[in-house]
């Protein structure tokens, strides 16, 4: 694995629970499929890693249409965790994903603690998976999903059970739809999570004023895209103040500049989501952008940017929640 990108002398990699990732740019769950559909349009081997679409024990067909609405600088989705199920993933996708020269982190979604454990246990026996991201934050399903991630106890319980089942990196993906995300992050940390992903989508809705109907079949959906970036940054900042484990910063990242903002407020790495739909190669452009930024600013290790925000916390409101 290339730690130093060739010729540049800039350290781009970072390590999580013994796994070395070649850089700090990842693609977010649900926005890159299982990694195999999109590789015509982007060199996946240039990525730090791929977070797969959420996988559940059984296949899920997802919510009825309409599932997508475009909004100002963003979009709402109510996909409802449509996925092929963990068994089919292992049989049909994993063999191919193993040929990639990047790390695969499987995102797991479930409607019960038992289902989380079953899915992870089945994956543990497979080669080619370096770690797990646990989705306790999907706003588009009635059972499980966000109901787990809005509760400190549930988050801790799921984390500690899964911790016992694996020695690989365990990353808990948090929802912003809570009063204080830092409390949920602390629960995940103390229950043994190696990192947290911040944030999943924000609950939102849109209405057709001609028909007076909600535009999404599920009435509400999850807001993503550039519109949520300021919210996501504040959530990452809050979490970074509360926990010591690394943070994957997610939310509306559309450029290298956006991604660097996330590093500065405390993200150890970033995940690109919605923007993959608009520019499938954007993640690789951002990986290149990190190196250019480092070169221009005479930085030898991208890691030195993590949490390097120059803020006077005297006036910080978030500080009073922590």
């Amino acid at each position, binding site marked *: 694995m290339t730690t130093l990108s060739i010729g540049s002398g800039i350290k781009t990699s970072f390590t999580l629970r013994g796994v070395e990732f070649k850089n700090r740019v990842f693609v977010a769950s649900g*926005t890159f499929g299982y990694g195999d559909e999109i590789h015509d349009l982007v060199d996946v081997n240039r990525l730090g890693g791929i977070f797969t679409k959420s996988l559940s024990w059984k296949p899920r067909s997802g919510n009825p249409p309409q599932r997508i609405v475009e909004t100002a600088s963003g979009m709402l989705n109510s996909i409802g965790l449509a996925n092929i199920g963990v068994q089919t993933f292992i049989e049909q996708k994993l063999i191919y994903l193993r040929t990639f020269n990047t790390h695969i982190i499987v995102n797991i979604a479930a409607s019960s603690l038992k289902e989380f454990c079953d899915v992870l246990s089945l994956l543990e026996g497979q080669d080619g998976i370096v770690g797990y991201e646990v989705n306790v934050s999907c706003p588009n399903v009635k059972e499980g999903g966000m109901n787990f991630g809005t509760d400190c106890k549930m988050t801790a319980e799921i984390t500690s059970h899964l911790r016992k089942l694996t020695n690989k990196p365990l990353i808990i993906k948090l929802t912003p739809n809570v009063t204080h995300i830092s409390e949920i992050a602390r629960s995940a940390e103390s229950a043994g999570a190696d990192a947290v992903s911040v944030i999943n989508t924000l609950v939102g809705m849109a209405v057709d004023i001609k028909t007076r109907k909600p535009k999404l079949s599920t009435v509400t959906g999850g807001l993503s895209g550039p519109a949520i970036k300021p919210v996501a940054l504040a959530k990452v900042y809050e979490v970074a103040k509360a926990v010591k484990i690394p943070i994957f910063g997610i939310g509306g990242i559309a450029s290298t500049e956006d991604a660097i903002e996330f590093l500065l407020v405390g993200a150890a790495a970033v995940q690109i989501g*919605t923007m*993959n739909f608009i520019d499938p190669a954007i993640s690789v452009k951002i990986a290149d952008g990190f190196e250019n930024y480092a070169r221009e600013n005479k930085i030898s290790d991208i890691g030195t940017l993590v949490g390097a925000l120059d803020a006077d916390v005297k006036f910080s409101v978030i500080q009073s929640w922590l």
Partner: protein
Amino acid sequence: MNSMVQQLCPVQSCKKIATDTFLLRFNSPDIVASAQPGQFVNILTAEIGKGPLLRRPFSISRVEDNIIELIFHVVGIGTNLLSQNQPGDWIDVIGPLGQPFHRDADYGTALLVAGGIGVAPLPFLTNDLLKYGKRIETFVGYRNAGQVFTKHLQNVRIATDDGSDGFHGNVVQLLELFLNQNNFQKAKIFACGPTVMLKALTELAKRKSICCELSLEGQMACGIGICQGCAVERTEDTAKYALVCKDGPAFLSTEVNL
């Protein structure tokens, strides 16, 4: 079959051809090389951050040498931006996408049916069916005479909602009249248009026992099968939903519940 690319493509021309209707021509040898009738392209209507967030899908209307032609209605912000392109401008295009129409089935006459801008994919399809030696009858419905655009089509019959051109009524009624007057042993319908029209057509095809293939629209985020956004319900329960962008946009009328 599907070797999609993402490319910056030079615009050759962009002209108004009917009320709110534009013909855009751009150069892309790579897309032309693998494009088939019924497939579409997904276009960024402005630079990232300067226009709407998502790409906009458009059927490939015709290919000629290294040029792709699109026909589109201006209905909102994205199509408005697209209509402002000038020769020399560049557009960011992903394509060709989706499954083409199944042209090779066992039938003698192709009945091409379109409502409004649903006419867009028909010129490409017509050209291809001629190569297969099929007889083609085309039926197109518009709101009024001002919208009518029938270039590169064969044996065209027109219906308008207001009667200002051709048959006074909708295109499915026009097709039914035609079917009542003519006896077709082996025909296949290829259709594109608004969902209400496709529903009525599905009924007609069922009554007349004619095979019918529909090109569907669906709200898309990615256009390449990764977001699961463009779901349409399947009639058979193998999987509950199909994806318009990847499994379609062309589906047999018996495959989907509109």
